[in-house]
Every structure is written in structure tokens, then in C-alpha cells.
């Protein structure tokens, strides 16, 4: 479900606290006050949501993860999860 029309970015105000020693990061979404713990894969996707075009984001992701058949599907799944959680939002490139 990678956006074909827009890019992804961190929702303004959302706070991200990396915990590299535990290979995770903790995210706070103030608009809907919740804490989330992202695993390594979701953390990577979040960090790549910096306004890249969908193609550039997918390319950067696929270059970073082990080459597995389900990598693209995992990217879509991760983006959907981050969108649903209010951690990232879609934007215009």
C-alpha cells in the first residue's frame, strides 16, 4: 500500500526515542496519547519516512533489509501500521 501519490513523514509533535541497546525505539503520539514500541523493522521504516518519494523510500528500504521475497510486503505492512498508529502521515512530495 505504498502511497503512489504522496510521501510519508513523521506526524508533527510525535516524539521518537531510540533505544539502540534494545534494538527498539519508543514513540509517543501526543494527539492520541499513547506510547508505542517499534521493532527494528518498523523503526527503519519510520526513519525512512522523511519526505522521500514512494519510489525512493522503497528503494532505500530494500537496500537496507535482507533480500527476502516478502520485503516489499513488509514495507507496506509497516507503513500501514505507522499510519494507523498516528506516527506517520502522508504528505505531498
Amino acid at each position, binding site marked *: 500500500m505504498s502511497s503512489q501519490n504522496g510521501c510519508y513523514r513523521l506526524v508533527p509533535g510525535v516524539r521518537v526515542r531510540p533505544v539502540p541497546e534494545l534494538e527498539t525505539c519508543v514513540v509517543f503520539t501526543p494527539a492520541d496519547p499513547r506510547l508505542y514500541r517499534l*521493532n527494528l523493522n518498523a523503526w527503519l521504516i519510520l526513519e525512512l519516512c522523511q519526505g522521500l518519494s514512494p519510489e525512493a523510500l522503497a528503494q532505500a528500504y530494500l537496500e537496507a533489509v535482507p533480500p527476502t521475497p516478502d520485503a516489499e510486503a513488509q514495507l507496506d505492512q509497516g507503513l500501514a501500521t505507522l499510519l494507523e498508529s498516528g506516527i506517520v502521515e502522508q504528505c505531498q512530495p
Partner: protein
Amino acid sequence: MSSSDLERLKGMIKSRDSLDAPTAVALDPEVRTGETFILTDPGGTRAGEPGANIKALVKNKTLVGAVTMVWGYDVALEHGDRFGAWLRDNEAALAAAAPKGVNYRGTYAVFSTTEKHTGNYRTIWAYDSLNALQAMYAAAGGTDEFATLFKQLNDFRDRSRDANRAQEILVPAAAAGRI
């Protein structure tokens, strides 16, 4: 995150043969301190001192103390025997050396518990008042016998990252200020 942090993140991933599917798990924060009860003078009418009813119940040993503190902690397995020997030799002296209003109520091995991470030992302190609790911390920083024994007791605590620990401060429910 800076670009160097992103590179480090990528490095953590590159060292793996596979990657778990992305997840964002909502955390349920657990706040246990000051959530329900205000720490006040236990039934007190004067700052730091318990009310007469609480004093009477403490005196006749119905209550453990006007304020009770329970430490939970682990002692490393290899120090268990030495810890037991230290207690046999020093518990009475620790109790006797405690400041006025501070009552050492013993150290216990946890025979059974439903809690998983509160440690294998408990040490119980009972205080005649909130002032006495403060007095203990002041005395613990001194150089007298109490301070020495207090430190020796605490030196047995397992301070490692994975060690279990807990602390509870209890006040008589009859005098608790609920919020």
C-alpha cells in the same frame, strides 16, 4: 535521527539474515507511585507525627508502624551464605543502633510470592512517623554503627541490571489520604 544514526540502524539490520515483520506495539504504562494515595502524616494532626489513634495501635503492636517500608531485592547466589551469616551476626545490632522512631523489623527470605520481579529477600522497616523515615536517611549517611551496618546490609544487594528489586511504603489504611 541524524544520518549517522540511520547508518547505525542500517548496520544493526545488515548483520541479520532475516528481519521480523514490522510491529508497533502499544505500551500500557504502569504507574504505581502516588497514583491512589497521598503520602501524608499517618492520621496526623501535626507535620510528620502520627495521630493518637495510630500511635496507640503501633504501641500495642496492632500496626507494624505508622509508616512501613518494605525493600525487595536479590542477593547473588554466591553471596547467599555470607548474607545469612551477616544477618545472624548483625541483625540485633542493627535494630539496636537504629535512630529513635526507626524500627528494623527483620530481613526475610521469600518462601513464596505471586510477584516475579521483586527479589528473593525482603527487609522491613517500621517508622513511628514520617519524621523518623527522614531521620533514617540522615543517619544512614553518617559514620556511626547504624550507618556502618546499614551500608553493609545494602552492599549485599545485587545491583546488576537484571536483578530484581522493589520498594513499598505503606501507611495505615485507616489514615490514608485517598485521591
